């Protein structure tokens, strides 16, 4: 197990873990603030494309890659959760090694969907999203599908509860300013490539955002 990968995310930015995680509620990087300000300024201009360019960056310490796009006032972001990170998280939640390994190698992402400025409250179901890879299209692997596996393996209730609430919500509604952050799996093998199409509705009108050429962590 690569302990550097486990430790660095929590110490890299601002020192000891509790301060970096809990004490930074006011920290938002200047580039992020500037980027959002520019985005919203442009969005106010007539003719501005509702779908902005996809961005990608790699964490210099862990190597984890993030893909992000803005579409119709909504931010969609996927950040690789490296197998060592996922393994450590679930082993600490009481998963047996076999179960932790199964999840850790299922192409896991920390996923954020955020209603920044959609024309109203959005709603979505993960079952409506599409993972396109090598000519095949299917939804992300569902929480129910995982839960059935954990029940079959006899995982303790506490472990199953932690799993459920650590996942990106299977369905949700976001007013402007609302968002979630959670784990999402595609079920693709390490190194696999795919496009993700996220779909949502606002007042019954369908919208979508797409992330292209996303890569599963190895």
């Amino acid at each position, binding site marked *: 197990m690569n302990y550097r990968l486990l430790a660095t995310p929590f110490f890299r930015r601002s020192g000891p873990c509790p301060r970096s*995680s809990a004490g*930074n*509620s006011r920290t938002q990087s200047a580039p992020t603030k500037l980027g959002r300000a520019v985005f919203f300024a442009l969005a106010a201009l007539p003719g501005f494309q509702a779908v902005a360019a996809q961005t990608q960056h790699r964490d210099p310490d862990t190597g984890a890659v993030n893909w992000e796009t803005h579409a119709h006032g909504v931010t969609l*972001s996927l950040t690789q959760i490296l197998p060592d*990170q996922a393994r450590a998280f679930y082993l600490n939640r009481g998963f047996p090694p076999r179960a932790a390994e199964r999840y850790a190698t299922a192409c896991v992402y920390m996923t954020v969907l955020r209603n920044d400025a959609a024309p109203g409250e959005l709603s979505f179901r993960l079952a409506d999203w599409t993972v396109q890879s090598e000519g095949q299209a299917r939804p992300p692997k569902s929480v129910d599908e995982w839960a059935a596996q954990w029940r079959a393996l006899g995982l303790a209730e506490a472990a199953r509860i932690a799993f459920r609430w650590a996942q990106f919500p299977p369905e949700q509604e976001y*007013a402007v300013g*609302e968002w979630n952050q959670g784990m999402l799996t595609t079920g693709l093998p390490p190194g696999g490539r795919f496009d993700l199409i996220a779909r949502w509705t606002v007042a019954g009108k369908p919208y979508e955002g797409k992330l292209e050429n996303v890569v599963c962590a190895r």
Partner: protein
Amino acid sequence: MSFVHAEIGMKRGLFGLLLACIAAFPGAAADLPPLTHGLTPVAEPKPAPALRLADLDGKPHDLADLRGKLVVVNFWATWCPPCRREMPSLEHLNQRLQARGLKALAVDVGEDADTVFSFTGQLEPAPTFPLLLDRDSQTMQRWKVKGLPTTFVIDPQGRVIYRAVGGREFDHDAVVGQLLPYLPGR
């Protein structure tokens, strides 16, 4: 906070710090989504679901006993990054408005008292409001929470008037401004 838990906390403080660092939600180092500066008004306020849970010391708390106060109910877990980020601001809000009738309750989902205590002991400021344990997540499901963190504001008549899905800066002036009209001790 009881003496027993204070003693446990002292013994486990360093261990808890290490555990929290290793066991926190992975991917937290990625660019953090900004915490939101507002609450979502509920169009048609309805009575809040029941909430009867014990705190870290085993003391029972019942939301029904808080009728007449403005109550902020925050559903969270120690491993949830936005929950961890927003918790100090909830304590700031509580300190700022509790004398005017605001009461904060944080409901941890699926974890035990030692885990929660080890984490909150590292917070600055540490929460002074009740930390309740929803070990089987039944309360969270009764409140129809779909993701963490989710927060509800209950008016003095016991109705849900605001919700907040995702992390918030609860002590931001915009949030405080939304709460002020509902405080019983205006």
